[in-house]
């Protein structure tokens, strides 16, 4: 995921830390498994609310979904942090060098998911890729996949929508990244990259490869949890709270006319609103999930999600430093078209 950087540290005293997950992960699984019964018991017997009332069901929904999603998030972010410690932007660049267009696009999109890098590194990364001769189209596959398919979005989709939707999102997101990059590669847009990018002569970067022990990787996992969970938990709680209110109080089929299957224009509209909007997935996925229960169509919801996470105005402004306007426009329109196709497809299939 793009937003977060990891920290590795070599503190011998932290050695013991590697045993903590051995205790905490089974504990998290146990809480996760018994959560539903626990919450039901609490709502029905401890605070003794009347079953079926709007308020009761809203409270039940909130009490169940918030801990569920937060536990999932902590565990997954920890594991992903460890996985990411095996990858780096430099290694990814090396792997992509000299790869032909289509194969390169597939690799770049996949590596985009696991390579750790901050969104603030997007420019040096772009220059680094271009400079080492990686085709522009392949570079774009990386830049599309990196923000779009991230662990926070996947955890929320898995926790609130189920594994099918999460898998659907990840696989279609990957396809969009691969094909957008491939299309951009075919369009021969190299002349729309700022000239100074091509003039940069990158130094031979020979960072002494530090020996990374497994302890360090565990530490990376911890850092990822602290970094990410501390940033997004508040949005998740707020999103689920709003979702709970929607679940309890908004009438059935309320969204059918606005975001339903029948309204074909809702997909392009969702993308048009989603592209300039910059929001993390954490806050609005729970809200979308609630709207889905009120007649919104899955394809429309997915399209909105992808365009919000995958494309954003701040990102475009950063990229404007190295790309001329026509290239930005091509980039946005190709990716937005891909997202709309996915949206229509799902509204049609389901």
């Amino acid at each position: 995921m793009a937003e977060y950087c990891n920290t590795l540290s070599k503190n011998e005293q932290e050695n013991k830390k590697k045993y903590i997950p051995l205790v905490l992960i089974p504990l998290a699984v146990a809480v996760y498994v018994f959560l539903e019964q626990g919450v039901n018991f609490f709502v029905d017997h401890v605070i003794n609310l009347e079953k079926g009332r709007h308020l009761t069901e809203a409270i039940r929904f909130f009490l169940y979904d918030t801990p569920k999603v937060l536990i999932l998030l902590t565990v997954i972010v920890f594991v992903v942090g460890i996985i990411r410690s095996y990858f780096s932007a430099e290694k990814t660049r090396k792997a992509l060098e000299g790869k032909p267009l289509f194969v390169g696009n597939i690799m770049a999109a996949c590596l985009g998911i696991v390579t750790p890098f901050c969104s603030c590194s997007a420019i040096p990364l772009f220059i680094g890729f271009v400079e080492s001769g990686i085709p522009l189209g392949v570079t774009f596959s990386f830049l599309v996949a990196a923000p779009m398919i991230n662990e926070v979005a996947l955890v929320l989709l898995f926790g609130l929508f189920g594994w099918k939707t999460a898998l659907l999102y990840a696989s279609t997101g990957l396809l969009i990244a691969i094909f957008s990059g491939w299309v951009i590669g075919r369009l021969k847009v190299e002349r729309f990259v700022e000239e100074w990018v091509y003039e940069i002569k990158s130094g031979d970067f020979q960072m002494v490869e530090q020996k990374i022990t497994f302890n360090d990787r565990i530490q990376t996992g911890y850092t990822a949890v602290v970094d990410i969970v501390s940033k997004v938990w508040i949005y998740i709680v707020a999103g689920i709270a709003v979702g709970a209110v929607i679940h309890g109080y908004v009438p059935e089929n309320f969204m059918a006319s606005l975001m339903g299957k029948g309204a074909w224009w809702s997909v392009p509209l969702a993308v048009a609103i989603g592209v300039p909007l910059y929001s993390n997935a954490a806050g609005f996925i729970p809200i979308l999930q609630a709207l889905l229960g009120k007649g919104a169509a899955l394809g429309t919801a997915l399209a909105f999600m992808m365009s919000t996470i995958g494309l954003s105005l701040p990102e475009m402004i950063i990229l404007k430093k190295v790309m001329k306007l026509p290239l930005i426009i091509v980039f946005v329109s190709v990716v937005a078209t891909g997202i709309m196709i996915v949206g229509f497809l799902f509204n049609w299939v389901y």
Partner: protein
Amino acid sequence: MKIEILGVGCAKCHKLEELVREVVKKEGVSADISKVEDFKKIMAYGVMTTPALVVDGEVKVAGKIPSSEDIKKLLGIK
């Protein structure tokens, strides 16, 4: 000692600069600390992920914030 922090102004880059200044002050070493924000200069070091720490022209860390302990080691302070 010449210390350069490479980064274009994200939160992580500021954090690294703060940490380095802290360590240098605490250890009482004399060092010339500067922030490099120009892409051309950053790329000249071959760095693709910021923040990065450069000591006397040599890239020590890129793409992450090392702990104060690690910074001490990277600066060669025992």
